[in-house]
């Protein structure tokens, strides 16, 4: 007997369907199959509406008009792209597949998480008349931004987890991390229009930290909630 012989062994005869399975299909109702692009559009749409509500509640920074337009648009766009790309990879599988591209999503999530931390720590941040520098002495006072960012990340993560229910027998943790990173970037986008603190520590470790923390929390929580029993 060798491996080839083992491969040639006839297929076993399966048992009949169990009573539980028979009962499950007795009243089989049609279901709407998943439409990934539509779900992505819904996820982005409700996130944008929710983000606008959050921004209205926490207020847009009052000196926004004094900040260079290129910075407002450029950095805002970077945050938004950081939201869209991992969300796309986490929810939309390759053509003909059901399981999303969790490996690519995870790689992109890692890149955006590290990228926004480095971006905040290194990029020159323009200041307005109300800008403040917290630096290390008041670093911990900036925790409100972390809370706002994580609260903003909640909706895209929850929406993604609902949409992906049952679609992730493998790669669930990585996909959840990507969803978290996407939500974190969306939180960063909201903070970009709200926060007046301009020091690198705050931007890198708190705003960038939102992406990291959201990804880690999502990876820890979402797979448990998402798995089909």
């Amino acid at each position, binding site marked *: *007997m*060798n*491996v*080839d*012989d*083992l*491969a*040639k*062994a*006839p*297929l*076993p*005869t*399966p*048992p009949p*369907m*169990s009573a*539980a*399975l028979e009962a*499950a*299909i*007795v009243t*089989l*109702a*049609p*279901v*709407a*199959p*998943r*439409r*990934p692009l539509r779900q992505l559009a819904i996820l982005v749409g409700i996130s944008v509406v929710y983000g606008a509500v959050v921004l209205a509640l926490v207020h847009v920074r009052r000196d926004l008009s004094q900040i260079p337009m290129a910075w407002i648009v450029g950095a805002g766009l970077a945050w938004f792209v950081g939201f869209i790309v991992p969300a796309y990879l986490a929810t939309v*599988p390759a053509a*003909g*597949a*059901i*399981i999303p591209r*969790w*490996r690519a999503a995870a790689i992109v999530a890692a890149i955006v998480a590290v990228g926004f931390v480095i971006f905040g720590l290194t990029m020159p941040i323009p200041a307005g008349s109300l800008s403040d520098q917290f630096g290390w002495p008041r670093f911990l006072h900036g925790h409100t931004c972390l809370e706002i960012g994580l609260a903003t990340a909640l909706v895209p993560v929850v929406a993604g987890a609902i949409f*992906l*229910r*049952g*679609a992730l*027998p*493998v*790669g669930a943790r990585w996909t959840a991390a990507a969803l978290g990173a996407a939500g974190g970037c969306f939180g960063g986008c909201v903070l970009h229009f709200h926060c007046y603190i301009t020091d690198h520590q705050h931007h890198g470790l708190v705003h960038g930290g939102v992406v990291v923390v959201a990804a880690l929390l999502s990876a820890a929580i979402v797979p448990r909630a998402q798995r*089909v*029993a």
Partner: protein
Amino acid sequence: MAEPKDLMQRYVDGDALAFRELYTLMAPRLLGYLMKMARTRAAADDLLQQTFLKVHRARAAYIRGADPVPWIYAIAHRTFLDHARATKRAIVRVGDEDELPEVAAGLGGAPDGSSDEVPDPEALAAALAALGKLPEQQREAVVLVKLEGKSVAEAATIAGTSVGAMKVRAHRGYEALRKLLGGRA
């Protein structure tokens, strides 16, 4: 027999007969995979039923036009891993040899006309015992790639790993199995 994709589409549209056809089509292949992984017929039968129940509960995750086979295999893979962890049974327990003749009989005892000769159950049990001595990941790679005839990419999708890692596992597993079978692989 219809394609799994067509059956799955009819099934999500509420056609119970399509589900039965899907079960008839997929269950023997899945059971063969699960028997080689779980190493007991009873556990494999149970895991097969659990797999189809999960497919049923998760059917809304299906995407029209997609091939459901890798997804169903991945659900079987996850179901097996959950079972193995829950029961804290190492898949490679040498002490399970008592179960192997039963599994071997299950694999070799029901020819479906696709094979001209039925393997000797004792030799099959010996081969299964050797397979059972492989580490879990190598064993799975060998089962999927060498025994189930999946492509490396398909096997990687099912097991939730990269193509490169699957290739390495399959190669190492095959080499280890060849040694265990005395160079006859």
